[in-house]
């Protein structure tokens, strides 16, 4: 018996731990362009290193972190308690958080839509299905077509928490995969409304957003996001199982460096430093 045990233990310990060839960054679709740009610049500056960037949504990235299939989870929302619990159980760690950028979560409208401003309460009523016609918020007499994200998306969750105040989305909201798909849908639909990162502003316009029912409304830009005037802002995060080391640390240090933060700004987000 003891011989069997010793043989099997030796065999198990002899199983080679596959050498990690690349640092993987997986998660938020909102962040995927930014992450890819930073990774490209980093690899150019550090030949021999490989950073693999993929999307899938914040939930997918964090699940990958918990399963051990990604080194860095990119997330556009804070990690959930249930996810921290799973990290604790699997890796005996609470995780390591690095805010990498700030984002003003933009509200997209079709360029032909006469509506220019919306308040947070109006957005809540629109996305929970209480307001269904543009006429009710100062627009033309036409039905509002809601475009939203899949529920694994951090953007979906953040919008729900911040704008909908945790109320549920209207069942009429159409679920699309990725911010680019939302932008594309709104750009083709005169009655469409969507939300997502400010980096994806092609063929649509931003609605100015005001915090309350009255007061000034603001578009998301460096000044309004940094000052807090624009009401829908959030951090974009890198999550790791533990404090970064090796290439992962170099990559994160680069992302937070002035050069990395310039790339953050170049793709439409806002630097944290």
């Amino acid at each position, binding site marked *: *018996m003891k011989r069997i045990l010793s043989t099997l*233990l030796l065999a*198990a310990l002899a199983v080679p731990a596959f050498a990690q060839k690349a640092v993987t960054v997986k998660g938020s679709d909102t962040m995927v362009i930014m992450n890819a740009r930073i990774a490209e610049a980093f690899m150019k500056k550090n030949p021999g290193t490989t950073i693999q960037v993929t999307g899938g949504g914040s939930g997918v990235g964090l699940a990958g972190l918990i399963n*051990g*299939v990604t080194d860095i989870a990119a997330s556009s929302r804070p990690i959930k*308690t249930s996810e921290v619990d799973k990290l604790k159980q699997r890796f005996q760690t609470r995780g390591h958080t690095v805010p990498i950028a700030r984002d003003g979560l933009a509200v997209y409208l079709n360029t032909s839509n006469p509506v220019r401003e919306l308040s947070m309460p109006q957005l809540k009523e629109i996305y929970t299905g209480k307001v269904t016609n543009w006429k009710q918020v100062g627009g033309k007499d036409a039905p509002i077509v809601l475009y939203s994200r899949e529920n694994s998306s951090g953007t979906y969750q953040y919008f729900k928490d911040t704008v909908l105040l945790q109320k549920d989305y209207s069942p009429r909201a159409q*679920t699309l*995969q990725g911010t680019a798909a939302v932008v594309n849908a709104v750009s083709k639909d005169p009655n469409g409304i969507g939300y997502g990162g400010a980096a994806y502003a092609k063929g649509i316009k931003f609605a100015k957003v005001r915090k309350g029912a009255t007061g000034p409304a603001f578009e998301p830009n460096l000044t309004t996001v940094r000052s807090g005037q624009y009401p829908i802002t959030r951090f974009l995060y890198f999550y790791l199982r533990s404090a970064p080391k090796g290439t992962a640390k170099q990559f994160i240090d680069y992302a937070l460096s002035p050069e990395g933060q310039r790339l953050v700004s170049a793709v439409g987000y806002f630097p944290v430093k």
Partner: protein
Amino acid sequence: MKRTVTHITFLIVLSLSLIACATSGADPNTTPGGDPAMSGEGSMSGEQPDQQGEQPQSDSPQTEGADMAPNPDEPVASDEPAESPTAEELAGRLETLTEAFTETRNTVEVLNRMRFSGYIQAQYVNDERSVDVLPTPTTTSNRDQFSVRRARVKFTYQVSPTARFILQPDVTSSGVTLKDGYVELTEPWTTWRNTLLAGQFNWPFGFEIGYSSSSREMPERSLIVRTLFPGERDRGVQLTGRGFAERFLYQIALVNGTGTSQSFDFNKRKDLVGRVGVNFGPLDIGVSGYRGEDLVSNTANPRGVTFDKEREGVDFQLVTPIPGLGFRGEYITGKERGADVDGWYGYLIQNLGTRHQLVVRVDEYDSNTDVNNNAIRTLGGAYIFHWDANSKVMIAYEEPELEINDPDDNVFTLRYQYAF
């Protein structure tokens, strides 16, 4: 599952796009103002002679040969350019496609509410207690064998944002049993997300009962948990919620008290069980309690004898600043059929990188604290290799011993698990 649904959606959308392409360009003879759906179907059939005549047969090497020779009885292709569909036709077709897409999307959304996950544990056990004896129909004294320890598929259907249906059968060599089967209703008004469960679920007591067997670092639960909470589940209703920035958790349940091994509850009284847990960052602490009655058959009393069934417990889970090192422990005391019982377990878990785990567990169970030398202490260790996100291999060895001697009852387990 979600990826599969996405692929199905993509294929459906792709198919609809191809249909759209086929219907918009293939049938120049569609009657203006006719039923666009019907004209679309006609153009897809490929049997209409005018369509065949439009194919550039002479340019294709595949058209060469006797079979493809021009048939004088068939209409000859016209040199006139094909008429483009009118705006009305295109609008009609678009409307048809939109309706079809909406129907498909609705179907996909319903499918998307369904989730299924599961795992299979295949194992080999070598137990020193094994003896070669001819088996009875239901038991064997040989424990050295290959077996499917657990094979579970968990179905979850999200009825609405606040209602969920969960079913988890377990299919093993000994048969099919229901593990979980309950409806979950969550109130949407507070941040506590108070949730009512009704059906069959884990007893909300301590940590190890609710910790999934697919995640547990030893092959089986500790002896005291296996003894006092056999099957880990019961039938009843449970209320649970999390508040104070999700640092506080409460669970309270009213249950039959008979577990799931019995089909019926033998006494009218229901048992109360609950736990409160608090998170202090790297440390989680829980306090649990159980109050109920146990009706036990007795030869002297045909109506049986009722015993108090009591348990109190405290548990903790700690992650340390040392990378990958964590500790867990639980102490339980109570009354079981008139006897005072107690026991505990402690885990040390060390992760080495993302794939390797070393585990040491010590557990002890005393079935009657008023009697000396009857406690069983088990020292166990395991090595776990996480092959990938889905599969892992566990090699475990456990050595139980009594207070007065150490019988030959050590157990070796080699287990492969695949989870999805």
